[in-house]
């Protein structure tokens, strides 16, 4: 099975690396990623400057639990947050900053499909709620931006990952695995509602 042979993705995420991924594949991500959620997306969308170069970088939709231990930051829990909230902002951010990989969770629509296709970008689905398994893939915290302005959960954390597991949900051709599952379930749902076997007490 293709699944048992994960593809490896390493920062910086080149167009060639990312372009060869296909929806449904299992990947292990290593290297730098930047967390970004609602406040950061709105800030970039409104033309805010990035403190780091996001070309060929990954944005991770995540608001981690991070605590201070002596002079270091320690990640206590770090799974993905729902990505659909950022969909309206993504096309501009991908275009303006050259972001190559989005990591998050949940369904994304046509807007993200289009942005991935136009920008040679992929949307990777991480395992929602698996905050401990995924926190272990964070080797170190390399930096923190916007902590004061947006709060620690909404801040931009620079995380170094090692073999962070995810599934390609949208590839750079715009193929969308989640849309495929949704369409099939909608058809089946309609069939169940039309069935000649209504629920009667």
């Amino acid at each position: 099975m293709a699944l048992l042979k994960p593809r490896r993705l390493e920062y910086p995420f080149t167009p060639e690396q990312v372009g060869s991924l296909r929806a449904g594949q299992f990947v292990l991500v290593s290297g730098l990623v930047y967390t970004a959620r609602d406040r950061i997306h709105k800030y970039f969308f409104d033309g805010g400057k990035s403190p780091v170069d996001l070309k060929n970088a990954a944005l991770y939709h995540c608001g981690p639990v991070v605590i201070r231990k002596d002079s270091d930051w320690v990640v206590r829990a770090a799974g993905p947050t729902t990505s659909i909230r950022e969909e309206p902002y993504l096309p501009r951010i991908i275009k303006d900053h050259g972001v190559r990989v989005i990591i998050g969770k949940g369904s994304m629509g046509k807007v993200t499909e289009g942005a991935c296709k136009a920008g040679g970008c992929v949307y990777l689905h991480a395992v929602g709620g698996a905050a401990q398994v995924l926190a272990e893939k964070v080797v170190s915290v390399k930096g923190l931006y916007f902590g004061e302005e947006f709060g620690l959960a909404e801040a931009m954390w620079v995380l170094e990952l090692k073999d962070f597991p995810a599934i390609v949900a949208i590839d750079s051709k715009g193929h969308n695995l989640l849309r495929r599952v949704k369409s099939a379930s909608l058809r089946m749902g309609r069939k169940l509602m039309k069935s000649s076997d209504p629920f009667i007490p």
Partner: protein
Amino acid sequence: MKNHVQWESSLFELIRRTSVDLPCDIEQGLRRACKTEKKSSRARWILEALLENVQKARDNDAPLCQDTGSLIFYFQVPVGFDTNALASATRLAVARATRLGYLRQNTIDSVSGSACATNVAYGAPTFYFEQCARGTVDVRLLMKGGGCENVGKQYSLPAESLGAGRDLEGVRRCVLDAVVSAQGNGCAPGILGVCIGGDRATGYECSKSQFLRKLDDKSPVKILARLEDRLLKESKVLEIGPMGLGGNTALLGLKIGSMSRVPASFFVTVSYMCWAFRRRGAVLTVRGGFKKWLY
């Protein structure tokens, strides 16, 4: 209330355990689901990751999920018990659990947008108090994350687009629609809590209180137990699967309750709780000491 310190410490332990330790009935549900998915499938791989996560959270004494959610406390107290003091001890316990990283700073002022450092604010945490003719205090806690809260739905019957009339077949159609609409977005495989009847507010309250039921129980109302069974089976053929990435397991469980309604309203309310089903409870003495754990 006597023994404020003891109360704070017991409630802190309840929060800690709820955040880091998935209840046994849910973990078993995940294990059963895992066996029904094909080897080397995405669904199986995800369920195995979830089980690994459950174990790690326990071992690391760290939150199962970084979204530690909204905290909903259900208290049953002896007649005349001081619930104000109980609420204040609970707030202290919440603030301590936040300081120690068992809860994320997860409470946002809706007007200013600023985050609250303690998770204690107007409306946070949520309390339900009920007096009972017993000499002990029963406390249950749900921690419900935002991802799954966002996929809840309320229907007003008749709902023409679903062909849903004011009967149990209508309820069935609403629930099917809710499962399809939710896809994996509430961190599937989840558990559904459904309320038939009530008003717009009590419908959601009742649908969430279904999460206090054990995963493998059945509704004591026979007809609702049958409907629960049927809908759970039907949820599998939708092939939504864990995280909405395909497979049999869209739901681990489905619980239906009902409330009376006024003649003009017929609501069906569906709440979704993610697989990281943080629900714990305990029976405590009136002095705040543990008698036993529930779940």
